[in-house]
């Protein structure tokens, strides 16, 4: 028997999964950059990454006075190969839930603020559910114990960083530089 979970957990899990998936993709990109773009031959100036991996080639160059000169060119590898960088632009999550008996608990009135307590019921309801299958279109189909009665569709998009988040990143960035 699957344990029913709170709706917030069932809704939050796929949303957090999208974020974490994106982070994993970003991490993979970062690793790609480290492995492909740098030599790992550490030196004092760049202890982590080492030197930039370059492609060096020489070619015969004709000067303005007609003389021929052998020239050598070093190009960072990262500039000539595509870096796999993925970002979730949009995600759609849809699932069906079968709700269980709601949990009713009496709210403490201390946090009710100035709202009229008699209007707002003091009973707090928490919903729990399990994932279920879509209800059958055929009304005569035998009802299954996991036939869902709630359908949720969530469309996610990349959000701009909130002001607070930008501030946090700036602090972290500057603290890194200072150490």
């Amino acid at each position, binding site marked *: 028997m699957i344990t029913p979970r*709170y*709706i*917030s*957990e*069932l809704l*939050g*899990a796929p*949303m*957090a999964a*999208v*974020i974490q998936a994106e*982070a994993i993709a*970003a*991490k993979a*990109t*970062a690793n790609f950059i*480290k492995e492909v773009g740098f030599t790992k031959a550490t030196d004092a100036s760049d202890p982590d990454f080492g030197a930039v991996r370059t492609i060096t080639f020489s070619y015969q160059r004709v000067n303005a006075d007609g003389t021929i000169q052998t020239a050598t060119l070093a190009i960072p590898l990262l500039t000539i190969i595509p870096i796999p960088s993925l*970002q*979730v632009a*949009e995600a759609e999550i849809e699932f069906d839930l*079968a*709700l*269980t*008996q*709601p949990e009713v608990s009496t709210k403490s009135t201390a946090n009710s603020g100035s709202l*009229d307590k*008699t*209007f707002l*019921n003091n*009973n*707090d*309801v*928490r*919903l729990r559910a399990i994932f*279920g299958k879509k*209800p059958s279109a055929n*009304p005569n189909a035998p*009802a299954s114990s996991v*036939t869902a*009665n*709630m*359908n*949720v*569709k*969530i*469309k*996610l*998009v*990349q*959000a*701009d*960083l*909130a*002001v607070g*988040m930008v501030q*946090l*990143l700036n602090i*972290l*960035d500057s603290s*890194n530089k200072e150490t």
Partner: protein
Amino acid sequence: MSQLNQIIASLLSDINEAKSKADESSRNLARIYASDDVLKFFPVPKIGIQNLEVELKYAIESVEEKPFQSSQSKERLAAYVKNFSEDLAKELRIELSKESLSNELYKGLGSYPSQGWEKNVAKMISGELESVTSSLTDFSRSIQKVQQNIQKSIPELVPIAVKSEGFAAVPTEKGSYELISFDKAGIRDFKVVKEYASEKEAILDANLISSSISSNKLVLSDFSKDPVSKLDAAKIKAGNLEVPIQVVNVKAASIAPKVLFEASFAEKAVFLKNPVRIQPWLIGRPAAPAPPASPRPTSQPNQEEDRTLQEIASAILKKKMIQLEAGISKIAMETVSTGLQVAVDIEKLKLVKPENIMTIKFTLNSQDFTMLDDNSNVSIL
């Protein structure tokens, strides 16, 4: 079984909590990104809900209508009841005063009821109605109870007159009773110059005078005319009772006092000796049955209590109480909360016929997850 509003509130709360979990995940990642030399140049994954649709199937188990009393509605109700109490007391005073002035029996009441009477009655009604305002549950029954209580108080608040064989014990504005003699036309004839504490005492004297008239034993003496008021006066002796009498109707003063009083008593003697029973069909009013256990003297068969003022008060009370019920009902209707008791769990829904299963669908968009300031910009809060 829960209310639909609680279910929706819980869902919305869960959606918010889910979004906060996603944001929390972004926050943790932001720390990791900032500490990584390469990732710090990457945008931190952060999602926003552009659109969220929820479709929920539920079954209605019952519909509940509960009156709720907010402080605002309580104030409104209290104000309504206060106004009603004052209105009712005012209407009672005006109507009783009108009747007192026009009804021969109550003319002695003068300007009754007074402003003070109105104020006290309004206070009494308001006090009685407190039970109605404290709880709107079953207010109809409470109003009925209040009506009964006020109705019970009417005999104490409104006086009656007692008629007996051409005499009547009538209330006066001083709070006492006086004995008045009425002529055939029902007009005040003369009065016994004596103050009675109650109508019973006055009626006892009336009975004494009537029986003396019947047995021709009434003695009239000391005829005089008041030099100032020009009112005729005399003295009567009926058994042990010896009291002065005075004409009430000044128009009759043109006749000599002796002639006037003798004619008046002769008329009463005729009536007492040959009582004329007024046929109910003639006046269009059934004969009032005598109260079985009346505390008032019943030795005189034609004694009749006149409750005109009390009847007026009762009629006004009845009429106004209907208005009160309608008024409170209106306020109660405005402050009623309808709640749907629904079942959302799949185990219960399985037992419900498919046609009885309802669906609620709601959509939230990105604006619903964004706090905006007054200028519709994203708030930093």
